[in-house]
């Protein structure tokens, strides 16, 4: 009886459905790879003859370059300051992740373990702050960072902004996970004479590794992918981050799709790999954070 029910949907139907979906998700990625490998700046995969047949059109849709050339990958580094932009992005994203996580971990631990006046208010205001529209805070942030602190067009200015704006989300995620770590472990440690600092460092943090990894991932990806604030604070072309630079290629009057495609692939590879590597934490980290929150 039970086995009969399981077999009601044959696996080949599921596979067909999944393959169709995979084609849908993978096609844009293959498209951008094709453009990058075409060695041209055009966004057409193949040049159509004057009177194209259906076959010609199908050729123009197939994500396979008419001839392979790696020139886009090399000239994006030689003709454009793309290496510098990548370095800027890396410094900003790593810096923001480290600073943001250090602040969030301690705060989340306190919110999870201590009862103190203002605890509920603090968590609620962190939650509400997630609803602040970015546009509203962009102008004041510009005034603070550029005019008051004089950190316009510097990497440290961007690190500070990304690190602090990631705190509320990180605290919620981490607090939700800390709540699921049994208190008994810490109580046992207290009985053996460990101080609060030691408990935090050698018991809670190691246990919370999945949540920390996932929070770090989000924090890093935000820093790596953000471009509105970066475009606002970074005036000098030398100080652009990769997203600002990439948009430069195809925004406005320039239509350098080849550079854009090659650059996109280079920029995406680290985050995509990181994301896929850490995806086993995705479920546990996210659900722990959101269900308990």
């Amino acid at each position, binding site marked *: 009886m039970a086995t009969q029910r399981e077999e009601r949907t044959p696996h080949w139907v599921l596979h067909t459905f999944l393959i169709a*979906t995979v084609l849908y998700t993978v096609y*844009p990625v293959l498209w951008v790879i094709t453009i990058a490998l075409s060695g041209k700046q055009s966004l057409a995969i193949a040049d159509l003859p004057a009177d194209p047949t259906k076959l010609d059109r199908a050729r123009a*849709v197939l994500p396979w370059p008419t001839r392979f050339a790696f020139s886009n990958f090399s000239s994006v580094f030689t003709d454009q300051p793309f290496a510098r932009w990548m370095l800027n992005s890396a410094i900003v994203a790593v810096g923001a992740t480290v600073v943001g996580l250090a602040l969030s971990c301690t705060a989340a631990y306190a919110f999870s373990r201590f009862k103190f006046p203002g605890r509920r208010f603090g968590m609620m205001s962190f939650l509400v702050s997630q609803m602040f529209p970015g546009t*509203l805070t962009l*102008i*004041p942030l510009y005034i603070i960072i550029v005019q008051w602190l004089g950190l316009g067009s510097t990497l440290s200015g961007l690190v500070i902004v990304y690190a602090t704006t990631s705190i509320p989300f990180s605290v919620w995620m981490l607090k939700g996970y800390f709540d699921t770590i049994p208190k008994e472990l810490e109580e046992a440690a207290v009985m053996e004479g460990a101080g609060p600092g030691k408990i935090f460092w050698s018991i809670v943090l190691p246990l919370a590794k999945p949540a920390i990894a996932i929070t770090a991932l989000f924090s890093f990806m935000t820093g790596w992918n953000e471009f509105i604030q970066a475009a606002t604070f970074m005036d000098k072309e030398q100080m652009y981050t990769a997203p600002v630079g990439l948009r430069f290629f195809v925004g406005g009057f320039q239509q350098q799709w080849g550079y854009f495609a090659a650059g996109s692939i280079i920029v995406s590879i680290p*985050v995509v790999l990181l994301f896929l590597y850490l*995806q086993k934490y995705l479920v546990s980290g996210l*659900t722990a954070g959101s269900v308990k929150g």
Partner: protein
Amino acid sequence: MSPAGPPASRLRFGLGLFLGLLVALGGGWGLLRGARRQLEDDWATRRAIVTASALGSMVARAADDAAVRRTVAAWQEVHAPGTQVRVVRGTALEASTVPADTGDKAAPRRLAREEKPLFDQAQRLRAGVENNRDGGAPKPELEVEREAAGRRVAVPLESEGRVTGMVQVLVPAEGSSSARAPFQALILVALALILYGVAAWLLPPRVAILAMVGTALFCLAAAFFVGGELRALGLLERDGQRALARTVSVEMERARVLGAGTVDGSAWDTDVYRKPHGLVSAAGSVNREQGEARAQEVRRGALRSLLALSVLGLIVLVVVGFGGANRVGRALVTNRQAYAYIAPAIVGTTLLVFFPFFYGIALSFTDSNIYNTNLPLSELWIGLRNYTSILGDFGFMRRAADGHWVFNYLNFYWTFLFTVIWTITNVTWGVSFGLLLALVLNTKGLALRPIYRVLLILPWAMPNYITALIWKGMFHRQFGVVNQVLAIFGAEPLSWFDRPFTSYLTALATNGWLSFPFMMVVSLGALQSIPADLYEAARVDGASRWQQFRAITLPSLRPALVPAIILSVVWTFNMFNIIYLVTAGEPGGSTEILITQAYKYAFQRYQYGYAAAYATIIFGILLVYGSIQNRVTRATEAL
């Protein structure tokens, strides 16, 4: 009340009164000192501008170079020692009374290389005048520099409607009036404290009485202080107006003596764009109505700040008096460990998350735009006008020239409607497709599951601005692959971004592509945590698959799905990158969502105040949504 009892509260209210007065009076005094300095500075600048403009108009009348030098020399005679004049025309220094310009450096001569700043300044003024004449964004037509010796004012020289050079005058600084000492404030504080001490020991030591006495004394002292200071400020303003009028009439008289005949001096009192303020009449006296209005405005501006400070002081009084500060202090000490842990995060977010937010809200009540960013917000205050012009405009339809009804895409309600449709369609798609995929992937014994999973998560892993630009490229009319596919099936190529509906479809396709993996991962996680024996038991009971889904799967998914949906609604509602990069609001702003519209008001139309109001409304909508959602979720959980 606090267990310490009345004697302690006597002291507490005394302390509260002291601290409150310190805030209100001390802060008020500091604030007014700044305002007084500002006022004196403004008036001195305006007098200097009058002086320079008077000379400028005389130099402009002079027939030739020699006449210019005679005018300048005669003018220098009748002005205070320390006044310095330079007349620059082209690359020549035509006249100069600067002490260094004597002997072989005496005017007329060519400007030396190190005097290039003078030449540049003249060029700037010329550019400013010409720009303003052509109706560009206003640029200054005269320049004022503050120096230790006084103010250096440069005005353009015009002849026959063209700017030919400039006159630069150093007007020496006058002795500024002595700053008011904070005696009045100190005396008021002392008086209030003494009165409080007497009252507190005479009256029965009840908290209510103490609070009343303290508050009354506070209000009295604050009222005395505010009244006195405002009067002083008003007098200062009137003195400034009179001094300006005196300068104008003196300069008119001097011009007459120097042979310029009767001139209209009222045009000399201008702002940096050389627009007359109109405060001084042609006869050289203060225009009473305008002068009064200005004085009132000054007083009103100061009053607003002082009232705000008084309210703050009162809050301090109440908080300290009723033991709030005491309790806060005790809480800080007992929970010092917890506070130490959260302090860095709190300080960081306060400075760079919460402060900007409140600053933005304050901005929404002002008329701040690119031309007035250097002014303080209090001067730009326009109350609720931004909100009424956004929310009060219901003209989202209008009749076009050919009689058809067309949408006004810049209207708030159109954008709001579009944002709602955008959010609902996206979230619906994301949840249903994500859940479907999760159910399929959760099938036991399905081959290649990890590979499918990785490939299906790919859109989430891709940076979304790259996704947006890719899809924008794929929807290109001439070269985009979407139109090629349409052509294979014999359809005409579509201009996707020319019509609102197709433009919306492009954004939907893009966002749909990148948003479903999140829902899939969340659902999959929840599905895997459902114990298999639940299904086992259901099967034993003979439940159909649909029944199992309804009774087991959906309820188990809810704790994970509901927060994910809430999150996803907020994300989609504010999905800036996709709209901004894919459709860019085309055509004609019809596919703009609220957040991109607010951004465009701020950074393309430079109406910061209006944009801030727009963004505040977005926040309000999300807040209402959040609370409704919260209530609904709780209600359903209770069932």
